[in-house]
């Protein structure tokens, strides 16, 4: 083992370096302008082996094969149809040649049709492979090619293969021992192998570059050769120093010198100043955000916290101010960012100029590209991997499935005397947890619920309780109560109903319920019932108040001499209306509110109407009661009124009057009842005749609040488990979606569309929950819905994270989200099977000039604490952060002129040719160097 020809000798212990001690640059690295230098190579390497004549074949083939005897044995069994081939090595070469001819003849199109595979994560790059035997060894030869020829060469394209980038080639061959064989080639053997390929390629007139690995794969050492027409040959080699890189090579200046040393051997050989093309790609990665560190730093700034308190302080989370954080904390899907800065085609003549580049601001780079580092949990669908609303909803759906097993919720609680409470399917959190939940639910502080109706157009189609209402809050608590099994839910519900019963008995206002005078039929029945109860509690409270002051009322009414003639319950005069029979103004009475009805009451009425048909007097009883109540109140407010007066006030359309041209009230009013109102046997007149004059306060209430309230509590207390779970499922889906929907994520359009789609999917799936169909096929639908929910929940968390990190670069944030969204999209089918990804997310987004500031702020200057962890040695710092990878391409271009080259040169005369090229990749302490040298022979 010697030292590398282009790397200075490393300090002991020496890393394994491949190349022999002699400096090969004298030959392989020579410039074409020196055609007189000796072609004899002191090295057994690269070119010479490749160009080796067949005369030495016997000596050499021994190195590739293992054992001569075996070779001989094989030879006897070998192909006897071609007696001109004398050795196994020749057969090996001709085998390679045959394969290459086939590949050449096929061309990319046919090879793809024949099933060439794409190279993972390179869309345009394809690969075909063939196995070859030589002696006992099995080799694998692969041909890498592009679907369509790559256009203008650009180093830093994302889809460029590392081999292409390293050596500046397009399509290429690699021949290596079959990876499974564990065989590692040493120098002479790989040289021999390369020679074989080179001869074969030359025989079929191919210009493909060919590469052979040397030593163990981690070293990524290669040698290679490319036959370029009749005149030029390009030789390649690559090697790595994995540790203890000399300080000189940590910096650009030293690397530049290293490149120069490949051909500037003496001032006579070469003009003193060489124009070296330079291009560089630097990759930075944001440091892991250390919230604990931030916390301690913050607290240090204020005042020290006693030891005991530190432990009890909740850890600060990235999503603390996100809407879901009230229920859970999500792992940040964006672990950080990778920033790639590219310094493009600069030309340098002096090494010291490189130092300037090293000190230049990152803002001077030609382009910036940003890529999020995404947590693997985003694409991992395995159960339990992601904990969020989706996972809890899944548990709730399981509970829904088992809810049919019992008639009463109490059965689930009682029914496990023999069972082990620790079993997760029946585990119930301890009473302290229940207490905490109840306290939150019935906390008076929350007071008047401030729930807002979802603006989403699908919100109404989802039959759940409105977000933040009492039942919605109950459902959310249930999701996170233990593991949301049916027993835990039953326990929680029973306690919940007990609290509600207490509110009813004590006439305490229900928390989280809007004070309203109507019932929202689009909500689930439980919410409607709670609305009804809230109203009944209000009525009950005011009845109690009236009771206290009731005596005063009674006295006043008993004082009156002729009760029928005294105006009662007037709400005021109706403008320009006179009674028909007496010269008096018409008074509008106070009327009773129409009774409130929950959905099930409406349904009952509907069924009653259907059952009775139009058997007069049975359907519409409620309407008749209201009409009668109105008439009584009108009579009380207008003691001398007639039926006509009531109609003029109540149903003006049925009073056919002469045109009232002036506003002044005429008396007696002109006109008559409409035809239909004056028909014989008119229902309205009948009711009028029967209605006593009674102001509202003396009437029987249309809504019996005591009875209705009691009915509600009874409903809640006897609710079937399945009915409860149905409504919980609807409400929990809706409320969870509403919470997610409240997240600020920069309004990314695709996210918004997905969110709308989630609502639409929920609406259509949950609709069948109300259809009272069997649960068997429904459960499958609901589980699929959970899956859809999980996808969207994850994407939303991702969107929120990207948005908040790049709040100052909204365009960039949206583009990055779009890239990831498109990458994620194939997972979003509705199938239950998970779709795994081989492909990693690697899309980079170009950072606009004006966005650079925002991006650079992602790289917080390291704290004193952090900076000593690392010894900085590379330069090109971004806010004090060293690149995690530096890639450089040095190259020298030579103009071809006819004077220098043979006239048969296939290359155009005014074309430039890259004579020397060096690619350097790594960090200050791990350097990989690839060299390509073109020469003519």
């Amino acid at each position, binding site marked *: 083992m010697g030292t590398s020809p282009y790397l200075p000798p490393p300090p002991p212990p020496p890393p394994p370096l491949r190349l022999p001690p002699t400096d090969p640059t004298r030959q392989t690295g020579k410039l074409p302008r020196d055609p007189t230098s000796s072609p004899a190579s002191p090295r057994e390497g690269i070119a010479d082996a490749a160009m080796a004549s067949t005369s030495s074949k016997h000596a050499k083939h021994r190195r590739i094969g293992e054992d001569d005897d075996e070779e001989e044995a094989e030879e006897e069994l070998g192909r006897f149809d071609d007696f001109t081939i004398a050795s196994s090595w020749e057969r090996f070469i001709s085998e390679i040649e045959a394969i290459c001819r086939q590949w050449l003849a096929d061309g990319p199109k046919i090879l793809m049709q024949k099933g060439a595979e794409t190279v993972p994560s390179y869309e345009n790059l394809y690969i075909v492979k063939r196995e070859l035997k030589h002696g006992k060894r099995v080799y694998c030869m692969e041909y890498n090619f592009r679907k369509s020829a790559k256009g203008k060469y650009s180093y830093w394209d994302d889809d460029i293969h590392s081999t292409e980038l390293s050596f500046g080639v397009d399509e290429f061959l690699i021949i290596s021992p079959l990876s499974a064989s564990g065989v590692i080639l040493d120098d002479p053997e790989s040289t021999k192998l390369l020679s074989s390929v080179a001869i074969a390629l030359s025989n079929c007139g191919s210009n493909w570059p060919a590469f052979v690995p040397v030593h163990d794969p981690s070293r990524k050492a290669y040698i290679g050769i490319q036959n370029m027409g009749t005149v030029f040959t390009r030789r390649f080699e690559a090697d790595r120093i994995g540790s203890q890189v000399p300080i000189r090579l940590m910096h650009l200046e030293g690397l530049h010198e290293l490149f120069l040393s490949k051909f500037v051997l003496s001032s006579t050989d070469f003009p003193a100043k060489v124009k070296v093309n330079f291009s560089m790609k630097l990759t930075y990665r944001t440091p892991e955000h250390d919230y604990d560190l931030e916390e301690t730093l913050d607290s240090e700034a204020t005042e020290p916290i006693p030891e005991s308190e530190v432990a009890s302080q909740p850890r600060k989370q990235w999503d603390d101010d996100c809407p879901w954080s009230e229920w859970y904390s999500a792992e940040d899907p964006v672990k950080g960012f990778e920033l790639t800065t590219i310094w493009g085609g600069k030309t340098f003549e002096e090494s010291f100029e490189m130092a300037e580049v090293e000190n230049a601001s990152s803002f001077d780079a030609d382009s910036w590209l940003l890529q999020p580092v995404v947590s693997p949990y985003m694409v991992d669908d395995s159960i339990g991997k992601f904990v969020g609303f989706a996972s809890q909803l899944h548990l709730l759906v399981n509970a829904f499935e088992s809810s049919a097993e019992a008639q009463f919720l109490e059965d689930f609680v009682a029914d496990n005397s023999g069972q082990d409470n620790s079993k997760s399917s029946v585990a119930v959190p301890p009473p302290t947890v229940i207490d905490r939940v109840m306290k939150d639910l019935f906390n008076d502080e929350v007071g008047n619920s401030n729930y807002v109706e979802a603006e989403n157009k699908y919100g109404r189609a989802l039959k759940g309780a409105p977000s933040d209402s009492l039942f919605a809050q109950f459902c959310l608590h249930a999701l996170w109560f233990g593991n949301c099994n049916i027993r835990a839910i039953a326990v929680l519900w029973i306690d919940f109903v007990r609290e509600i019963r207490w509110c009813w008995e004590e006439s305490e206002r229900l928390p989280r319920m809007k004070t309203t005078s109507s019932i929202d039929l689009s909500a689930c029945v439980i919410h409607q019932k709670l609305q009804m109860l809230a109203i009944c509690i209000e009525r009950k409270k005011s009845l109690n108040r009236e009771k206290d002051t009731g005596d005063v009322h009674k006295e006043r009414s008993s004082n009156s001499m002729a009760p029928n003639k005294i105006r009662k319950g007037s709400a005021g005069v109706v403008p320009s209306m006179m009674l028909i029979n007496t010269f008096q103004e018409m008074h509008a009475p106070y009327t009773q509110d*129409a009774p409130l009805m929950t959905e099930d009451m409406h349904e009952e009425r*509907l069924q009653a109407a259907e059952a009775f048909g139009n058997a007069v007097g049975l359907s519409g009883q409620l309407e008749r009661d*209201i009409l009668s109540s109105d008439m009584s109140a009108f009579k009380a407010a207008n003691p001398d009124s007639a039926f006509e007066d009531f109609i003029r006030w109540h149903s003006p*359309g049925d009073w056919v009057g002469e045109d009232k041209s002036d506003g002044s009230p005429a008396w007696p009013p002109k006109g008559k009842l409409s035809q239909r109102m004056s028909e014989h046997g008119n229902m309205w007149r009948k009711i009028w005749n029967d209605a006593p004059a009674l102001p509202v306060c003396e009437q029987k209430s249309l809504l019996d609040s005591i009875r209705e309230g009691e009915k509600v509590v009874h409903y809640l207390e006897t609710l079937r488990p399945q009915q409860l779970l149905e409504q919980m499922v609807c409400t929990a889906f809706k409320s969870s979606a509403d919470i997610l929907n409240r997240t600020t994520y920069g309004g990314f359009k695709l996210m918004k569309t997905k969110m709308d789609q989630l609502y639409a999917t929920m609406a259509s*799936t949950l609709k069948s929950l109300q259809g009272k*169909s069997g649960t068997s096929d429904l459960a499958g639908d609901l589980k699929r819905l959970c899956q859809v929910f999980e996808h969207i929940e994850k994407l939303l968390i991702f969107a929120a994270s990207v948005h908040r990190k790049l709040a100052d670069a909204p365009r960039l944030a949206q583009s990055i989200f779009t890239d990831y969204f498109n990458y994620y999209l194939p997972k979003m*089918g509705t199938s239950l099977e998970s*779709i795994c990804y081989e492909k990693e997310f690697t899309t980079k987004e170009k950072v606009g000039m004006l966005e650079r500031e925002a991006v650079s702020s992602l790289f917080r200057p390291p704290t004193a604490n952090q900076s000593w962890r690392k010894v900085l040695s590379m330069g090109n710092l971004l806010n004090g952060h060293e690149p995690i990878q530096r890639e450089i391409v040095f190259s020298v271009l030579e103009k071809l002129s006819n004077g220098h080259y043979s006239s048969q040169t296939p290359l155009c005369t005014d074309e430039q040719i890259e004579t020397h090229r060096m690619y350097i990749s790594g960090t200050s302490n791990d350097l990989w160097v690839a060299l390509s040298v073109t020469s003519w022979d």
Partner: protein
Amino acid sequence: MDSSTASSSHPQLQPDFDYLFKLLLIGDSGVGKSSLLLRFTADSFEDLSPTIGVDFKVKMVNIAGKKLKLAVWDTAGQERFRTLTSSYYRGAQGIIMVYDVTRRDTFTNLSDIWAKEIDLYSTNQDCIKMLVGNKVDKESERAVTKKEGIDFAREYGCLFLECSAKTKVNVEQCFEELVLKILDTPSLLADASSGAKKNIFKQKAPEADAAASGCC
């Protein structure tokens, strides 16, 4: 339209039909809802008391080769009964909004009140709406032009016809068109034919994305 029986009670006694459709008449008091129903089911016209509560009639018809049982619900237009009327919206496949072409306020109330009531109380997302201008026999008193009716129908996505319960003009057509449209709407048919189990994922998934094939 070919009507066979007109019955008003015990719909269960005629199980011999392909679909049962529930149709609902709404609109201001006095626009002629009850008159339209009477004309349609009994082919007569007489003055009726203003509706209190609700009334419904059943009529068997043959349309497009299907035996249909229509249950037509006639509601009260009186403002006072409005919240109670909401009971009767549930499950309707077709809703007819009626106005009186001679009374402009009955027309403007459709957008101000009735269309909103449908949004609030209709339980069938896809139910077919129809706009009907009644009393065209009183042409001289017309206060709402036909064009205004058409424009409204376009805006709210409903069918539109002008008719007269008194002269019989367009009354049958009005119900027929509505029923044809319902027959064209699969989701409504699923509800209307008994015992049809539905699985939305099998029918139509709102998720348009095709599921990619899995691995692992």
